[in-house]
């Protein structure tokens, strides 16, 4: 059963982030659970560490660490996002209808981040999973270097379709370097030189395709895209080559 929504519209403009977040938190205590934020401009920490079924519709560009440590909220950004979205987030969903900056989903441990266009560097690094908590990031455009570096769990899906960078490879250098868990799926092909040491792109199997199809369906619905179009190409996967790739780095064996 859908929960009853108590809505509130806030205009951020140049309100200082502390005051703005205090206002949001006070309203949540009063029972507001659906925020429309207009003219957002650089306010940091929106929805950070918030829990429960709360919706945010954000117009404008929110500041750093949006949704960090959050557990539950559903955030839609109608414009671009900056750095550090979903830092160590636990659960919930972030949808970015534009591009996003660096270190998106850092050490994320649950929930989803769906980005329509390009992302910056170090997206999804240190992601981890626990039991049925599987963090997922889908990038519609291209990614900078170090995508999924040191990844320990979860799923990254890179589409490379809705990009502003026609000449760039789909992923930057050092893709998945040092990963020891989780999986990175890439639509089409990824140049071997871009992949971190010891890793290789492999063909996906039917189990992978099930995961990809489900994720793409969800992603396409949220961003009003054609899932058939997205699925019309082959996918490859990058998985860790051992559980502890650097386990013997500092000890004789």
């Amino acid at each position, binding site marked *: 059963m859908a929960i009853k929504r108590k809505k509130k519209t806030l205009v951020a403009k*140049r309100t200082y*982030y502390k005051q703005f977040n205090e206002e949001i938190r006070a309203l949540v205590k009063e029972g507001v659970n659906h925020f429309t934020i207009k003219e957002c*401009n*650089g306010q*940091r920490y929106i929805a950070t560490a918030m829990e429960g079924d709360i919706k945010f519709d954000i117009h*404008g*560009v*929110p*500041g*750093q660490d949006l949704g960090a440590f959050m557990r539950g909220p559903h955030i839609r950004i109608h414009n*671009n996002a*900056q*750095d550090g979205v979903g830092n160590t987030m636990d659960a919930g969903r972030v949808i970015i209808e534009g*591009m996003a*900056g*660096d270190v998106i989903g850092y050490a994320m441990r649950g929930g989803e981040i769906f980005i329509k266009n*390009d992302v*910056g*560097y170090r997206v999804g690094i240190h992601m981890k999973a626990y039991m049925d908590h599987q963090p997922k990031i889908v990038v519609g455009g291209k990614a*900078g*270097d*170090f995508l999924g570096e040191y990844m320990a769990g979860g799923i990254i899906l890179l589409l490379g379709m809705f990009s*502003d*960078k026609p000449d*760039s490879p789909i992923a*930057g*250098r050092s893709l998945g370097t040092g990963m020891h868990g989780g999986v990175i799926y890439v639509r089409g092909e990824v140049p071997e*030189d871009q992949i971190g040491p010891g890793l290789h792109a492999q063909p996906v199997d039917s189990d992978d395709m099930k995961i990809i199809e489900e994720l793409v369906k969800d992603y396409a619905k949220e961003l009003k895209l054609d899932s058939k179009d997205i699925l019309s190409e082959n996918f490859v996967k990058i998985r860790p080559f051992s559980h502890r790739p650097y386990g013997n780095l500092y000890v004789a064996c």
Partner: protein
Amino acid sequence: MKAPDKYYDFEKDISGCGIFGVIHKKRGMIPGNMPIQAMTCMHDRGNGLGGGFAAYGIYPDHADKYCFHMMCDDNNAIEGSERLLRKYFDLHHFEPIPTRKILAIPNPPMFNRYFVTVPERPANEFAELPEEDYIVAVVMKINTTVPGAFVVSSGKNMGAFKGVGFPEEIADFFRLEEYSAYIWTGHNRFPTNTPGWWGGAHPFTILNWSIVHNGEISSYGINRRYLCEHDYLCTMMTDTEVVAYELDMLIRKHGLSWEMAAKCFAPPFWDEIERMDKDDKELYTTLRATYGPGMLNGPFAILVADNNRLMGLNDRIKLRPLLVAEKDDMIFMSSEESAVRDVCPDLDRVWMPKAGEPVIVDLED
């Protein structure tokens, strides 16, 4: 106003400076309020221990003269620096740099500006030097021999304004809303390894070069020694100073293009060089071999300007944010998109440049 003796004992803190730059390609004059507001939007990237701006096109009436912005701790420093300026230059005009008293800045040093030219037949130890080397030599002489006096900038039709405070406070102090420029850069400092003192704020400048920097030049030691061999003496106790002098050496003195200078700062990785065609492989191998001590190691996003250009550059693994945006004849470069949107909500294009690839914007004339 000097940095404390044991400045190297300072504790480290997390870093997060903010930078902003804008250029109008047709020399349209941009009021100071724009960069000031953009820096205000990124207030929290600094901690009040440094703010500053560089502005180009602000002295059209004296555009043919070098403008020395002098920062002096006391009257002795003013007298000492004036003595040197009069000794080495023809002095055409000088005045205090207008400031206003503000609560946020309780005890500022004194600021004056001097419009000078190099005499036709100088009778001093620098007489043999070409004009621009002569200017550099006098800057080094003042910085190293006059106690309490520092040259904040020394270019033509440009100036740097900087100090200890948040950038919006420094702008208020220097009345920057009264200036208009066709290139502005701004900086919000969060000092990490070196003291937050007036000379250590950004921008750093020499001749027409200016630079603002978010990050940390871990190779400061080797860069500084390398520059010292070429008569550039670092006196500001902040890593970024080396970039200003390297720009002058690489581009003006050694004749490198801006692109090549950027590749000295952030060279391609050896494995990338290995995959290049024969010519590029030879070029970049030579560049790395020749300018190894000039390479900047560590995280950086920098904005570099002179009278005709603005360049943004990241370290080659992009450890600091940098965003570029376009609107008609204006190009913006900023740590955060929100700072640009604050002063120009509708943009034609926004993107984040690739690590190690310079974004260079020229004036159209």
